[in-house]
Each structure stands twice: as structure tokens, then as C-alpha cells.
């Protein structure tokens, strides 16, 4: 447990906004900041495997930013800071595989809108982070390129599907990362790695160029070590995109401003906080329960009015989710057929159908096949009403539950995951156990509301425990305001944000 404290010179230990401040003032160059993170990646990623691809052009991009700054150009406040990008996002010049063998080596001819926006703000892409194949999983063990390990304990999973982005941020390989959240893939990895992650309101951030898992559930969002850092990234990537018809055309407030105000006040005076009875259930581990109760006490002490709310339809959320997601995924993943891009496997047969079948057989992992089969079945004539149709009705019921709950509360809270990070391989043979793990995060995706995962302490095993905040549709601002306040209150107790307590990874990092 050495190397806890950041040396002043260690740029990787700074929060994103702190690093950005040094860049903006000219104390640190983007080349220095980028090099420091590339060095860190070189030192620790052999063990963690958070990255699938490291951007060979990162230093050139950093140099270009430095030159623009030197020329007196007015740059974005985050310009020059490095960022890691989940492999689900299309990036010009870097392979984008979504963790799948079927897209191995595929380099898109276009940038996802969120990627274009972070580049336009002058952020420097460090590379692409590991993930469960096509974002199907909660542990990153379903990556076709091997698992990512949790920086807090390499024997454990970093959550999923965005385990790569969360691990990269937790291990100081990047101050910022982009993730995507279909059923918790940002919030749950954040919870088990002691980081902060936000799933925005559905439509708040463009999905254009995000390789689709389930179109009606997917949402891109930030992964960072502080609430303010997530807010800063959200401000950059959010807002209407004409390329995404489901993107909301509305004015959003500055989330960074909300986070700064929340942190400065450190108060939750008058905020009505609802505890969802159904998410505070038996499946939650004792130590997670304990941290949650302590956090509730902190909130109460800070002036929050804590109430219990009930969302009875949540009982059906996992079942509904595992019909809607596979149904949409079965259609979204149909394009991977070897004809235009990606893997091509010549089968024993001669026809295009033979080659399509052989390619999909070889290119998709077991979990992907499982869900494609499930989804194909759920959409089949004669079963549609019973499965997909019923699941959509459940979705409506869950939205109503949230509507009712938000009548009584401004924010809802729950543990972000029922347990701390489990060991690699522990649940690999039991897909249902893995699915049930998502119970706390899934309802927000089904309803389209925003949610945040942030640290609330350590479990009995010394692993991070995460808190989930949920806000009504369009009210992402509340997450940042309250989240930053909670973060500040907890940091006061801990003497710093949680990730500063992470154990060092290797000799090289000391």
C-alpha cells in the first residue's frame, strides 16, 4: 500500500480538471501530460489490459494542441488533456471492434459524434478501451481479446461492459474516459472501481457512431475520478446531433457549473432523497448495505430529507430488459455478415449464406450468440406479443413507477451494484447470476432517465462500493449538483477522493 499520494510531478494522479488547469495556464504541455499517461499505460496495462489499442498518434495530437496554444489560440478548457475511448465508439484511424473478433482490425471511416466533439474540444485520444463483446456483460470477461483486471485487485473483475474505461481511469492511465451504458455498463464498473460514471438522459448524448447494442437503451456517457470531471466531459459530448434522430433538441444547462456549485455548498439542504425499497433488497451484500446506510446518514446530516419510495414494477425489470435488449441486438448485429467489412471466414460451402454463417459462427462469442438467439426468438411471429410486446408494457409500468417516485423525491438513491467486484471466472458459467447483478442499474435504461455511479467507501474486502443516484428525465443537472456535494462530504471523511486510496499496481508506479 505504498505510492498512495500523488507526487506533485505525477501528472497522472491529478483529477482531470486539475490537469486541465495546468494545461490552460501553460504550466504543463499537452505533450507532457499525454506522455505521462502513455508511460503509465506502458507500465501497468500489461497487467490490467484496460486498453485494446493505444493511439500511436496521441503525441502528434498533443503537439498540435500545444502549438495552437502557443500561437495564442483560445482553446477549450479541457484542451490538451488525454481521454480514453471505449471501443464501442467509432474512431477514424483507430480500430473499433466493440470487443468482438468479428470486427478485429476494422478501422471506421468516420468518428462517432462524441469522439468528434472531444477532438474538437482539443482532448487527446489515448486509445480504445476493453469491453465485453458488443457491450454484453457485467465483467469485461466477455471481451474477445481477454479480460480487463480491476486495479484495486487484479484477481477481480472491473465491472462491465465498460470495464476497460473504468479500470483505465481508476488506474490513473487516463483522467477521462468515454463509456456507454445500456443496462449499467458505465455505472456498475464505476461502482466496483471506485470511479464516477454517468448515464445521461436517453437522447441527451448522440449515439451516432456508437456501435449499437440495444438502440432504445444505449447511451454514451463519461467515466472519471471526480463528479466535476464527468460534468466537464458531459458538457463537451452532450447536446443535439442531427445525425441521431433520438437525440434531444433542447438547451442543457452547464453540468460543470452545477457540479462546482454542489461541491462548494457541500449541502443537501431541502433535497428530497428517495430510497427505492425494491433496490434495497436481500441480494445486497452486508458490507454494501452498511456503506449505503452510512451514506444515507451523511446525506441526512447534510440536510437531505430521506424518504422511502416503492417501485413495484422493478421486479420485472430484469426480465423485460433481457427481452428488449436481445431483440434489438439480434437486429442490430445482423449487419456483421462478412459482406462489407470485418471478419470473413470461408466456410466449407460456396454460397454467401455459407460464408455469412461461418463468419458469424467464428466471429461471435458465446454470450453474443446466446442473446442473438434469445432476441430472434422473442421477435418471432407468434411470440412477439408474449415476449417483446409484454416487455414493452413492463417498460411503461417502470416509467410510471419512476414518475410516481419522483413525485415524492428529487433524487433516488440505491447501491450501484449489489456486491463489490467478484473474482474473475466466478460467474462466467452462470449467465443468470450475471444478469441479476444488473438489477439496480437496469430500470434507469428502461425508463430513459439519467443515473450516476460514484464511490461510497470500501467493502469488507477493501474493494470499492458504489452509490447510484437517479434523477428524472432531463434532470441530469441534479445528479451533478448532488453528486458533487456527496463527493465532497465523503471526501471530508476519507481525507480525499476514494481513488487516492487505491493500492499501487506495480513497482514501476512508485
Amino acid at each position, binding site marked *: 500500500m505504498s505510492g498512495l499520494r500523488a507526487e506533485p510531478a505525477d501528472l497522472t494522479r491529478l483529477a482531470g480538471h486539475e490537469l486541465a488547469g495546468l494545461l490552460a495556464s501553460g504550466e504543463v504541455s499537452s505533450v507532457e501530460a499525454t506522455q505521462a499517461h502513455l508511460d503509465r499505460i506502458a507500465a501497468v496495462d500489461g497487467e490490467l489490459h484496460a486498453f485494446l489499442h493505444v493511439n500511436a498518434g496521441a503525441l502528434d495530437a498533443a503537439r498540435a494542441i500545444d502549438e495552437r496554444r502557443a500561437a495564442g489560440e483560445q482553446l477549450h478548457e479541457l484542451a490538451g488533456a488525454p481521454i480514453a475511448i471505449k471501443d464501442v465508439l467509432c474512431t477514424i484511424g483507430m480500430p473499433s471492434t*466493440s470487443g468482438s473478433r468479428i470486427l478485429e482490425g476494422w478501422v471506421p*471511416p468516420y468518428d462517432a459524434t462524441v469522439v468528434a466533439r472531444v477532438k474538437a474540444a482539443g482532448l487527446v485520444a489515448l486509445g480504445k478501451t476493453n469491453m465485453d463483446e458488443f457491450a454484453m456483460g457485467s465483467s469485461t470477461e466477455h471481451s474477445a481479446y481477454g479480460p480487463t483486471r480491476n486495479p484495486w485487485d487484479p484477481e477481480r473483475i472491473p465491472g462491465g461492459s465498460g470495464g476497460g474505461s473504468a479500470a483505465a481511469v481508476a488506474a490513473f492511465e487516463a483522467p477521462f474516459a468515454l463509456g456507454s451504458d445500456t443496462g449499467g455498463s458505465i455505472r456498475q464498473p464505476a461502482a466496483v472501481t471506485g470511479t464516477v460514471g454517468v448515464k445521461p438522459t436517453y437522447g441527451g448524448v448522440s449515439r*451516432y457512431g456508437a456501435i449499437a447494442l440495444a*438502440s432504445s437503451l444505449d447511451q454514451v456517457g463519461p467515466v472519471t475520478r471526480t463528479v466535476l470531471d464527468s460534468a466537464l466531459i458531459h458538457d463537451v459530448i452532450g447536446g443535439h446531433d442531427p445525425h441521431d*434522430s433520438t437525440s434531444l433538441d433542447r438547451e442543457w444547462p452547464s453540468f460543470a457549473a452545477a457540479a462546482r456549485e454542489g461541491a462548494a455548498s457541500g449541502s443537501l439542504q431541502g433535497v428530497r432523497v428517495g430510497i427505492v425499497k425494491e433496490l434495497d433488497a436481500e441480494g445486497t451484500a452486508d458490507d454494501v448495505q452498511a456503506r449505503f446506510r452510512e451514506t444515507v446518514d451523511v446525506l441526512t446530516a447534510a440536510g437531505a430529507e430521506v424518504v422511502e419510495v416503492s417501485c413495484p414494477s422493478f421486479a420485472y425489470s430484469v426480465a423485460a430488459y433481457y427481452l428488449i435488449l436481445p431483440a434489438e441486438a439480434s*437486429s442490430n448485429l445482423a449487419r456483421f455478415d462478412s459482406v*462489407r*467489412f470485418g471478419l470473413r471466414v470461408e466456410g466449407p460451402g460456396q454460397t*454467401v449464406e455459407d460464408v455469412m454463417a461461418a463468419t458469424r459462427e467464428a466471429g461471435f462469442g458465446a454470450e453474443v450468440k446466446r442473446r442473438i438467439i434469445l432476441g430472434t426468438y422473442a421477435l418471432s411471429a407468434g411470440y412477439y406479443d408474449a415476449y417483446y410486446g409484454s416487455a414493452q408494457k413492463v417498460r411503461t409500468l417502470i416509467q410510471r413507477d419512476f414518475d410516481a417516485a419522483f413525485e415524492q423525491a428529487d433524487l433516488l438513491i440505491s447501491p450501484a451494484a449489489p456486491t463489490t467486484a467478484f473474482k474473475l471466472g466466478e460467474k462466467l458459467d452462470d449467465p443468470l447470476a450475471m444478469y441479476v447483478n444488473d438489477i439496480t442499474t437496469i430500470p434507469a435504461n428502461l425508463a430513459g432517465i439519467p443515473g450516476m455511479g460514484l464511490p461510497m467507501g470500501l467493502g469488507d474486502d477493501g474493494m470499492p462500493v458504489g452509490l447510484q443516484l437517479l434523477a428524472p428525465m432531463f434532470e441530469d443537472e441534479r445528479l451533478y449538483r448532488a453528486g458533487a456535494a456527496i463527493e465532497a462530504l465523503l471526501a471530508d471523511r476519507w481525507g480525499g477522493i476514494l481513488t487516492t486510496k487505491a493500492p499501487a499496481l506495480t513497482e514501476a508506479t512508485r
Partner: protein
Amino acid sequence: MKDRLMDFDEALERFEPVMGFEVHVELGTRTKMFSAAPNPAHPDFHDAEPNTLVDPLSLGLPGSLPVVNEQAVRYSIALGLALNCEIATSSRFARKNYFYPDTPKNYQISQYDEPIAFEGSVEVELADGRRVTIPIERAHMEEDAGKLTHVGGATGRIQGAEYSLVDYNRAGVPLVEIVTKPIFGGERSAPEIAKAYVATIRDIVLSLGISEARMERGNLRCDANVSLRPRGQEALGTRTETKNVNSMRSVERAVRYEIQRQAAILAAGGTIVQETRHWHEDTGTTSPGRPKSDADDYRYFPEPDLLPVAPSRELVEELRAQLPEQPVARRRRLKAEWGFADLEFQDVVNGDMLHLVEATVGAGAAPQAARKWWTGEIARVANERGVEASTLVEPAHVAELQRLIDEGTLTDRLARQALEGVMAGEGSPSEVAAARGLQVVTDESALVAAVDEALAAQPDVLQKIRDGKVQAAGAVIGAVMKAMRGQADAARVRAIVLDRAQA
């Protein structure tokens, strides 16, 4: 294998034909249905090289997303209104899932249970003036697939091909699919009704200006469903769906063929297989395609990448106010304006040349002259070659041809030669005339010299003319025309011959 056919009259005696049509109309918007890629159905992009009118969505690249083309929606609503349909207050896109290499996402974005337009009707007019109302079930928006070219193998079909090439330029072209309800009571006019229906849709689409509607280019495509039921039977018979019917004439022929083919099978105690069939223009027959059943499972579900299209009532009324006149009314107006006799007009309509004559008149030709070209020389060549007249020459070129005659630059005969050049792709009539050296010889002295030479060569004829047998002049005129390689005005030559003979 050759199909057995029953005589058409006998088939009609024993069975009642029931038809249904699915007509696909490619909209001529500048960009595709769901992306900003150029639309090959727009005149500016006709001649693009394969796979150049593409973008991430046209290729189904990972991460790409559709965005609805507003102009295509306006066109679709206008078409729906012209078909007397109701326009949905909210209409949804759905995914139709099936694997095929011309379908880049392996699903087609179409509409399923909530089409943009529904419950309409179209009035068509037959050659004898009878009017028939075709009931329309729906008109919905969707995207076209790419185009496959099967290489190797004898037939150009996928069976037996060595490999296939795919061009995604067409992938994503905006389509409206117009689906009729079953059409009863056509009886022996069924084939003609089929043709008249498709021609009417084409006329509507052209008058709306939403598509070039050229069947040979695939702007307008017709799938014809035909079934027979024995006289007196209530239940509908099993239907076949004949695809690839790419001309008006073929629609008529294909329906007729299917009636005769199905009748022969049923009469022999056989059963009709529910299947798609391919129309072969060259042999005038259909052949079985893939078996198709109502159980084909496309796993339709609402397209989650798109929001419902909810056209405002103001927009619908705005488009309704802009609707052009209906085809039947238009015909009556044109007939009156052009002053054609009944038979003349029927010729034009039956030859499917109304829009061609109209365009030619629009380009400056007199109506009668335009009619004569299209129903005369052009129709003759089209018939000879077994192609549509519209594929041979542009209306503007026909008008130009007539202008050259009216100006005295070309004789009728030279004009026909120029037309031949135009149809061979040698350019506009003026260009062809210049290139081929077609021009009336107006040089009087050259004509006089030629006449004198001809008269001198045929003294017996000269004597006959002098004796008052003027009709004998024909032989001399012929010789002169030959010498002038046809490029002289025959009337003028005749006058000179008579004049010189008396000299």
C-alpha cells in the same frame, strides 16, 4: 420447362381472376431516404459509378444511424393524397429483418402496422372509355436495397452464377410501396386493367413530380399478384406474385400469362404453389422463384432509431391544395386541347404515349405532329425491337426533329434518317443531321443540272412528258433524288423536271 396454357377465353369461362398489385415508386429526392448520400433516382446522379453514392448508412457500417428525409415524407404524403388515401396522424417505421447481401443492415427500414397513407382508391380508364376503381389498401415509405449482378452462369440469375457483385448506390433510395386491395370483377379486362392501373400510377407520380417513373430504370416496379377461383366459389384461390415486370406492356402480358397458366393447372386437377415468379420479357413467360408463404417471418418491430412521423394537419392540407389534376381528368383535358379524334387519342393512350406526346408538345411540337411521330415511326421501331418507345428517344428530340422539318432543313425522309441516328445514340437530331450530312439541297443550279442530266439519260421519258403524260416524270424524279442521295425536296425536283422538260 414449358408451362401448359389454357386458351384465355376458356380460362375466363371457367375461372374468375382476382388481382392485387404492389407498386414500388422510387422518389427523386436529392438524397436518400435516411441519409445525406446522393440519390441515384435523382437526375443529377443517374450515371454514377457503382458504390460511389454511399455513406456509412448506405453500407450499414457499425454505428451509423438513419435520419428521415423530410422531402421524401412530403412526397409520400402527396402521393397518398393523390391516391385518395387517409394520411396517418402518426406513422411509424419498422424493421423488416432478413439476411440478403443487397440489404446492408440485413434489415430494411420499412413501415408495418402504421403506414403513412391508407384506405384510398384510384380511378383508371380503359381503352373503351370504361372506368374502373382500384381500391388502395396502403402506401408506405421504405428504403430500397442495393443491386446484385450475378456473374458467370448462363441466365444472369443467382442460380448457377460464379459470383455476384453488389452495388450499394441504390441502397437507401426512398421508396413508396403502394399496395392494392384484391381487385375483383376485372374478368376478361383483367390484363388491361393491370396495365391501366400501373400507367395511372405512373401518370400520378409524374404529375406530382416526385419521380421520373421510368420503369426500364426501375423507378417504378410492379409486382403482380394473380389468383383464380372457379366460377361460383367464394374462397379466393392460391396466388402467385410475379416480380420483375418492368414495362406497362409486360404487366398486361404477365397477368394474362398467369391466368392462362394457372387455369391449365387447376383444370387438370393440380394446385397452385404460393410463390414468387419471375417475368421474362424475352419469352413472355413466368418461371418459379422462391416459394413464399404468409409464414415468412420478418420479425418486424418498431425501428428504435427513429421517432414516429407525425405530419401536421396543416402540412397535409398544404399538400392537398397543391395536388395536380387526376389522370382521368387530365386525359379529357389533353384530348380536347389537342383536338384529337377518338381513335387518334386511343392510339396514343393504348401505346402508353400520353406523357410522351405531352412532353413533346411541351417542347414546342404541334400536337398532331407529335402524335404522328410517336404512334408512327417510333412505335414501329419500338415494336420491331420489342422495347418501350420511351427508351428510344427523348420527347425534346422529337420536337426538335419536327422543327427541322417545319423550317425546311429536313424532309420527312431525312428526318426519319436523323431519328434513326438519334435512336442509335448519335446525339440530338441537329447533331445527327450534321454528322451524317443530312440536309435538303437547296442549291437550285445543282438541282437543275441533275434534272437535265436525268432527262438526257432518259429521252423516252422526256418525250412522254412533252406529250403531256406528266406521271411519267416519276422515273426522272426518282433518278434525281437518287443522285442527290435523297437530300432534295421531291416537290421542288418535280417542278424543275416539268419546267425543264418543256424547255
